[in-house]
Structures are given as structure tokens and as C-alpha cells.
């Protein structure tokens, strides 16, 4: 009896909480979402003279709660931002390792919402701009993260845009490269096997494959995910290059239309050539000959592929080295 009353109370709390969450979600869903294409300060009240409570970077998700037109004073007329309306927004900002949900005001300048004409192109263009900044030597700090968020927002705010798939893929790829660099920069990670080493989170790549199956984006996502299965160091043993060659070859067979198919086949061939050297050093003539034969066959396959770019000349030099027994792995010059 007592237990059943407790159950009833718990049920009531769950229902009330559910109603509140649903209400908030519905409220958020009703509200207009947007993002920034330039950094902006978040203020307690509308107007740049009020107290700043945070900084919102490009690409953060904003929920626009309220609009206001400021009655601009003569002095304020000089500021472009002051002439524009102000938005009350709800935003989630990172603080150290935690996140903080904040509500505040920012100038509407630079806010792009799903009702902005050509909003998808504007955000995508700013993402390309940020990605470009990230690649410059003296580029803006945090530009890669900006690009990652902005690309994500294109797919998030404009799922039906023709740019959505490419943007979502680019966002996932930037995230992947950043995380991979972080993991690989740890010296302790290099010696570990792929199973023991830290993995890049596959969630975003799997999402691409699920959302855009059998497209070039799914092919590219599957290719990135190979990174998680590669060894850090081979240590002169055949096991790793053997496994990696199989992985690359399987990718090339399963994704024949992928822009990465020739590259994958080249890496499969190159690893077979390395295996031939490893087996030769270990005086295992039979296996060495088999690996050499396999390397040649794979490299020759690239020559017959309809591919532009550098993979065919790279395959040609690999075949040449195999024919002349020039080692690819091990000691340098004779």
C-alpha cells in the first residue's frame, strides 16, 4: 500500500516533469532558430552600454526569444549595430569542460535565421571563409571550430537545402580531423594497437552514412572511419600492414564509385609492397613473392580506373619499384 502510494507520487512527478520538458521543447520549437556569422557579445539588456555576460562565437545555435527596436540616441547613431534591432536569445555556451545555458541580448546584425533569404548560402559561405582562415598560417584563432559549427548549422537549420549534405559532411570531417590530431599527438598513443588506442568518436560519421546512404558523402565518411582501424607503428611486423591492406582493399571494392576508391586501392597496394619487404627481411621468400604479386596486381588496377589526379602516376612509380626490387620499407640507400 505504502509502496503503491510512493509509486503514485513518483508517477505524478514524472508526468509534471514531462509536461514541463514538453512545454519547453514546444516553446523552443516554436521559436526561431538561428546562428551568428560573426562573433558577438551577449548583453544583459539591449544596447551596447549594458553589461556583457558572454561572447557568442560564429555558428552557435541561437533561439530567438524576442525582438526589439532601440530608440537610438544621437550618439548611438554612429554605431551600425545600434541602428539594427536587438534579439533576446537563448544560447548554450561552453565554460571549461561544462556548458552553460544563457539568455541575453545581442544585435541582430550578423544573426541569420531560417527565415533569412538565402540563409543557407550565407552560413555556408561563412563556414567556407572560416575553414579558409583555419588553413592560413596567421588565421583567426578558433576558425576551424567556427567552420565546424557553421557547416553543422546549415544542415540543422536548412535540412532541405542543396548544400545541406555537403555542409553536414564537412562539419563531421573537420570534427574528425581535429579529434584525430588530438589523439595522435599523444606520444603514448603511437605504440598502441588500434584496439587499445583512443578512438575518434564515430557518431557523426555514422549519422552521415545513415542520413545520406549510397552517396559520395557516405563514401567519404566510411573512408574517414578507416583511421580508427589503423595501427600507430608497424614495428617491422607483418600483422598491421596485412590487416590495413585488407581494410583499404575492401573499402575500394565496396565503394567503387567513391572519389577515394583509387586512393584506397593505392594504399592497399603500397602496404602489400611493404609486406613483400618485411617477409623478404624475415627470409620468407614465398610470402614475399605473394605480397609482391598482389601489390602489382592492385597497382595495375589503378591504371585502369577512370580517375583524375595523382593516383595513376603514384601507382606507376610503385610498379616500377616493385619490378626493380627497390625496397619501400626498411633501410634507406644501399
Amino acid at each position: 500500500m505504502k509502496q503503491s502510494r510512493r509509486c503514485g507520487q513518483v508517477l505524478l512527478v514524472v508526468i509534471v516533469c514531462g509536461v514541463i520538458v514538453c512545454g519547453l521543447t514546444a516553446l523552443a520549437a516554436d521559436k526561431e532558430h538561428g546562428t551568428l556569422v560573426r562573433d558577438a557579445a551577449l548583453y544583459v539588456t539591449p544596447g551596447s552600454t549594458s553589461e556583457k555576460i558572454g561572447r557568442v562565437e560564429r555558428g552557435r545555435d541561437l533561439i530567438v526569444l524576442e525582438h526589439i527596436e532601440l530608440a537610438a540616441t544621437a550618439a548611438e547613431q554612429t554605431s551600425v549595430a545600434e541602428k539594427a534591432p536587438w534579439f533576446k536569445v537563448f544560447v548554450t555556451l561552453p565554460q571549461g569542460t561544462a556548458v552553460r545555458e544563457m539568455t541575453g541580448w545581442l544585435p541582430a546584425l550578423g544573426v541569420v535565421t531560417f527565415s533569412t533569404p538565402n540563409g543557407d548560402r550565407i552560413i555556408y559561405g561563412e563556414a567556407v571563409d572560416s575553414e579558409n582562415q583555419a588553413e592560413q598560417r596567421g588565421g583567426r584563432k578558433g576558425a576551424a571550430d567556427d567552420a565546424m559549427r557553421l557547416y553543422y548549422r546549415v544542415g540543422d537549420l536548412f535540412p532541405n537545402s542543396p548544400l545541406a549534405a555537403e555542409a553536414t559532411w564537412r562539419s563531421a570531417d573537420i570534427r574528425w580531423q581535429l579529434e584525430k590530431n588530438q589523439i595522435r599527438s599523444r606520444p603514448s598513443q603511437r605504440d598502441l594497437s588500434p584496439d587499445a588506442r583512443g578512438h575518434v568518436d564515430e557518431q557523426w560519421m555514422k549519422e552521415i552514412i545513415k542520413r545520406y546512404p549510397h552517396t559520395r558523402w557516405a563514401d567519404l565518411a566510411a573512408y574517414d572511419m578507416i583511421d580508427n582501424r589503423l595501427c600507430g607503428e608497424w614495428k617491422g611486423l607483418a600483422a598491421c600492414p596485412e590487416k590495413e591492406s585488407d581494410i583499404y582493399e575492401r573499402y575500394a571494392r565496396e565503394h567503387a564509385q567513391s572519389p577515394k576508391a583509387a586512393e584506397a586501392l593505392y594504399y592497399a597496394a603500397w602496404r602489400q609492397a611493404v609486406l613483400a619487404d618485411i617477409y623478404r627481411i624475415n627470409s620468407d621468400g614465398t610470402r614475399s613473392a605473394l605480397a609482391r604479386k598482389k601489390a602489382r596486381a592492385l597497382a595495375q588496377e589503378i591504371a585502369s580506373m577512370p580517375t583524375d589526379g595523382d593516383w595513376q602516376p603514384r601507382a606507376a612509380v610503385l610498379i616500377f619499384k616493385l619490378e626493380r626490387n627497390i625496397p619501400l620499407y626498411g633501410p634507406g640507400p644501399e
Partner: protein
Amino acid sequence: MTTLKHRTHPGLLTALLLVAAAAFAAGPEKEHATPIRETNLSASPDANAEKLMPLERGRDLIVLDRSTPAGGQAWLKVAVPPVASGDKTGRPSTDTQKQKEEMTGWVPATVAVAASTMNADLIIYGEAVNSENEAEQRRGRRSAAEDALRLYQRVAEFFPTSSVGGEALWRHADIRWQLDRARSKGPADEQLLQAVIKKYPGTKWADLAAFDLLDNKMCPAWNGLAECPQKESLAYEQYAREHPQSSKFAEALYNAAWRQAVIADIFRGNAQRASSTAAHDRALALAQEVTSQLSPDWKTRAGDLIYKLQQNIPVYGVQQ
């Protein structure tokens, strides 16, 4: 009846004989080769022979003789010309720098690709790509960029009419350009890029070389003045007008538009409203032109610029 007489001028005959004799004395043109792997120049065709000097990938070798000792590996006797002081091949190694005269010695035939080797153009080009790729890796081989530089140069020299000849010369010039720019603050040497334009006029490589050359027209800093971005904007627009087929067309036009937007901000900051409006309108017109291009990245970047111009969001200076 008309008799046709074949008459030969005695002076001409003498001249022809002299030319033939000179050609015979010079012998047939020597074959060139290049190593696709780091190796050594040896005093004799023997793996244990004295090493005269190291040979990097892409060094020019003139084949003088071939030798295959019984049961051993094949060797090439080669002459290695010194790297001339004005050579743009790349930073030579210390040993190479010491080489003042042509050296003669032996190299293992396995690592040298002769011009007569089947698919030699693709093989040397492929090794150049490998080296370029190495140079881009964080832990890539030291001096890989210089290797790529030399290997691309060899493709362009040995096989100027190959399908990869133009691309190789362009890549050679571009790597040299990027290395020069990274190493010195002054204007980079234009010689190699000008050679690409001269040798392959009206091609994509000439367009790309001309785009690289714009770097020399850029100011090191604008210092908040309109003069430099104005000059740069004109340089980019002129490039776009003169190279409408270039793969850099949209980029050049976008760069011209973006600089006009910057100029609008600079003039606005100086309270020069009329000049600011003129630059603003010019930026808009140029950016609109980019949006009609096929390249999605430049198209969307232009769209973003147009939005900022329409909203009067500053693109230059201190942001709020």
C-alpha cells in the same frame, strides 16, 4: 629537248661535310636519367666501392656507360653536373653545395630512371607527387619539398611534350614560389612562373602562374589606409578580366570584391561617405558577379559577403 641538270654547289657540299663531321665527333646525344630514391655516386660499379657523394632524388644524371658485372646488379656510369649558383632547383644539400665541377661515377641502375625507360614521365612524376605528399606530412621526410621540386623539373625537362609535362613545370614553379615566399619577406623571384607563361601560353598553367604572380603585388600591411586594398582590388579584378577561363577566376573576383568592402569600411571610418558608398556599391557588383559562377564555395562566400554588405556588417576593423 630539255636536259635537267642536278647541280650541286661545291661550297655547300663542303659545309655539309663539315657539319656531319662535327656531329660525328660529338657523338650521339647522351641520355639523361634521374634517381627516384636517395643513393650514392660510387667510384666503381661495386656496392663496396668508395662513395663519392650522395645523390638526392631528382638530380640530373648524364648516362655515359652501362655495366652488368657477372651475377651482380646493373650499374650506370654517369656524369653529375654541378648545381649552378643561379639554379632554382631548390636548396642543395651541403655535399651538393661543395660540388663545384661535374662529377663522374657509378650509380645502381635500379634506382635511376632513364629518359628511355617505358612510362618514365609517369614514374618520375609519381615520385614527385610522393615527395610533395611527404613534404605536407607533419613527420615527413626532411627535404621532401626540394626532392619534389627537382623531380618535377626533370619531368618538364626530359618530357616537355608529355601529358604531364605542363603540369610538372607548373608544380615545379609553384613549389619554388611558395618556398621563396615562406623564406623571405621581399618579392619572390618571378623567373620560373614567367617561364611557365611563356612555354604554355593560354593554358590553365599559364593562368595559375599569373595568379601566383599577383602575390608580388600585395602590400605586406594595409595600416588602415585605403590605398593598398584599392591597388590590390584592381590587380585581382584585372586578373579576372584577363583570365576569364582560369580556375582562379571566381577567387580573383571575390578577392577584388572583398577588398572593395574593406575600402568601404575604411572610408566610413574616415567619415568619407561618398567614397564609402562608391566602394560599397562596387563590392556588391563584383560579389554579384561571383554568385553566377559554378564553384559552390566562391558562390556562397560571395553570398555571405553580399549579406554583410547589405546589413552594413563591417568586414574590416574592430568588431563589436
